[in-house]
């Protein structure tokens, strides 16, 4: 057909016409956007890339007026590992590799035993990670939890938080649907309580008040207190997510299971829950993304996750004044993780929706 012979320039012209200059309002909009880009982008690029310092080792190497990325380069290890002793970096690296492999195994298409792997990962993961990083079941050198920091700590808090809140959330979701009045009311109260308060107050409560609730002498690690607070908080959100999944499983499934003679717990664990959880995997990933971002709050109770380490680094006399570079780097790291996780979640959601009939409207424009 003739379209194939059209020159690329003409095609581009057509595209510009259609997408940028279709109506007079469009023209106006395009001009405003272009003006904004021209105003904002060049100064930023100049500061961040063209004038910036990349080479060097101390602050004296940051002579130009641009960004001082030397700072990020020199403190990079601290941002990732915190104050973990550097001759023992193989242990956090091992944790990263194991988690990466486990996640990769789950992402790839169906294979036998995938569910078992997911299950064991969620249950045993926290314990294995803790042992590797702390003292390797007693065989390795002890590294105390205050030294775990940076991205490592962020991932531990988010990962352990989700892993521990998943079972709790499932139980709460089941409880919320229960026919037993007390169980239902208790679940509702528990869920609404933790959903109605900000995470920062939960962390305060965990770090300041938790020791009071227990017998004197039970010594609570700060990380442990933080994890307890985060788990309780996340379990409420997880309960709502799982509830959505439970409601999406057709009632006929439960009836079929009962017809087969299964009791409540049997039908739940073998028939309903597997389907429900599969449906809400995107929701679980979204909760994880939210938790991943919320771990930055632990800087307020004196723990040094990625954001905390960045802040501590530029308040040091050596690198004072380079706060913007630090914040941008931390922001970039968070963005990379969260963006790819949300893309992954969208992909799964699409896959799940393709299995069902979709009824949403087609895309159309408003302007």
């Amino acid at each position, binding site marked *: 057909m003739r379209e194939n012979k059209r020159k690329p320039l003409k095609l581009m012209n057509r595209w510009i016409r259609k997408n940028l200059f279709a109506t007079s309002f469009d023209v106006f909009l395009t001009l405003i956007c272009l003006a904004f880009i021209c105003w904002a982008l060049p100064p930023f690029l100049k500061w961040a890339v063209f004038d910036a310092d990349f080479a060097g080792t101390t602050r004296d190497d940051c002579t130009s007026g641009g960004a001082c990325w030397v700072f990020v380069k020199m403190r990079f290890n601290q941002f990732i590992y915190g*104050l973990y002793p550097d001759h023992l970096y193989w242990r956090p690296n091992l944790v990263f590799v194991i988690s990466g492999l486990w996640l990769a195994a789950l992402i790839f298409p169906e294979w036998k035993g995938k569910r078992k792997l997911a299950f064991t990962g969620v249950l045993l993961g926290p314990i294995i990670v*803790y042992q590797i990083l702390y*003292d390797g079941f*007693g065989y390795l050198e*002890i590294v*105390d939890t*205050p030294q775990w920091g940076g991205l490592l700590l962020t991932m531990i808090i988010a990962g352990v938080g989700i892993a521990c809140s998943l079972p709790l959330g499932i139980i709460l979701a089941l409880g919320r649907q229960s026919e037993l009045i007390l169980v239902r009311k208790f679940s509702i109260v528990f869920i609404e309580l933790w959903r109605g308060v900000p995470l920062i107050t939960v962390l305060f409560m965990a*770090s*300041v008040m938790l*020791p009071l609730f*227990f*017998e*004197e*002498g*039970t*010594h*609570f*690690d*700060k990380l*442990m207190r933080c994890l307890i607070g985060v788990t309780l908080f996340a379990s409420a959100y997880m309960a709502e997510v799982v509830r959505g999944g439970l409601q999406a499983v057709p009632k006929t499934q439960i009836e079929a299971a009962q017809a087969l003679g299964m009791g409540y717990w049997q039908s739940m664990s073998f028939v309903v829950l597997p389907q429900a959880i599969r449906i809400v995997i995107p929701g679980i990933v979204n909760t994880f993304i939210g938790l991943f971002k919320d771990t930055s709050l632990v800087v*307020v*109770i*004196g723990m040094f996750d990625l954001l905390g380490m960045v*802040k*501590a680094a530029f*308040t*040091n*006399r*050596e690198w*004072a*004044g380079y*706060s913007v570079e630090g914040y941008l780097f931390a922001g970039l790291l968070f963005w990379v993780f969260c963006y790819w996780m949300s893309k992954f979640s969208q992909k799964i959601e699409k896959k799940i929706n393709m299995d069902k009939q979709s009824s949403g409207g087609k895309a159309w424009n408003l302007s």
Partner: protein
Amino acid sequence: MKHLRIKVLVGLLLSSSGFGATIDQVRKKGFIQCGVSQGLPGFSEISGKGKWQGIDVDYCRGLAAAVLGDPAKVKFTPLSAKERFTALQSGEIDVLSRNTTWTLSRDTGLAVSFVGVVYYDGQGFMVRKKSGVTSAKQLDGATICVNTGTTTELNVADYFRANKMKYKMVVFEKSDEVVAAYDAGRCDVYTTDQSGLYANRVKLKKPDSHIVLPEVISKEPLGPVVRQGDDQWADINRWTLYALLEAEELGLTSVNVKKMKSSANPAVLRFLGVEKDMGKQMGLSRDWAMKVVKSVGNYGEIFERNLGAKTTLKISRGQNALWRDGGLHYAMPVR
């Protein structure tokens, strides 16, 4: 500290009784957990090489030498002003050596005990030179940056009320944020203990364009703190501090302390544990004081090393000299 999770479960299921004496726990752990600040030059900060340094840090090292025989057996926990007392009360740390002001309400109302004064300080103000202010009495209507959870907040309120001046106060969680805000121009005045003013001035963009006003508006005796109810541990802390001062009085330094074992001065011999065992009743070894001085030096050495003329702070002894040199430090006799 092993297997914390199991310990939590055990603690839940069984009932444990009481903290147990701190010294027993410390001996069992093999180190002292010392609470320090999050970075105050001269008092407690991490050097470029990752080592802690400062007078509060040296105090804890001396304590470790006295109790465990080795000044390296200390672990430091950086704490903000807000969480320092909770950390001590809950048992997370064994001693709080964090430039903490000794006041009535803290001593009596928080279930902690102050064991002495390491540094006599006072609260002061810092302003920009070009504001033209030369006295604190000219600060009517100023905006002041402070760190939350400190006596600084309350002292400012008292001072301005007493002098019938108006002010606005911006409150931050971390002292570094306070310094940054002052530097950025958010406030006219930066206030904290005078030692802190000198220490943090080096963090400013142009240290020489700021001056410290002459007025000292409060007494800030800074010292170590322990939990209430553990007298033996409090005694050990108190007498470690006195040992540092007494060593300076007797002329003992980290260099000559071993040689002084053969001194003719009976006070020295008593101090070093040659004649009498002064440590037994506290549960310490005979030569506890000698170990302290050998590892961190006497008070004068500690002061010079961290705050003295050769450091960036250049603080003079002033009120912190010994009583016989016109200062306020007076050690109780070790006998």
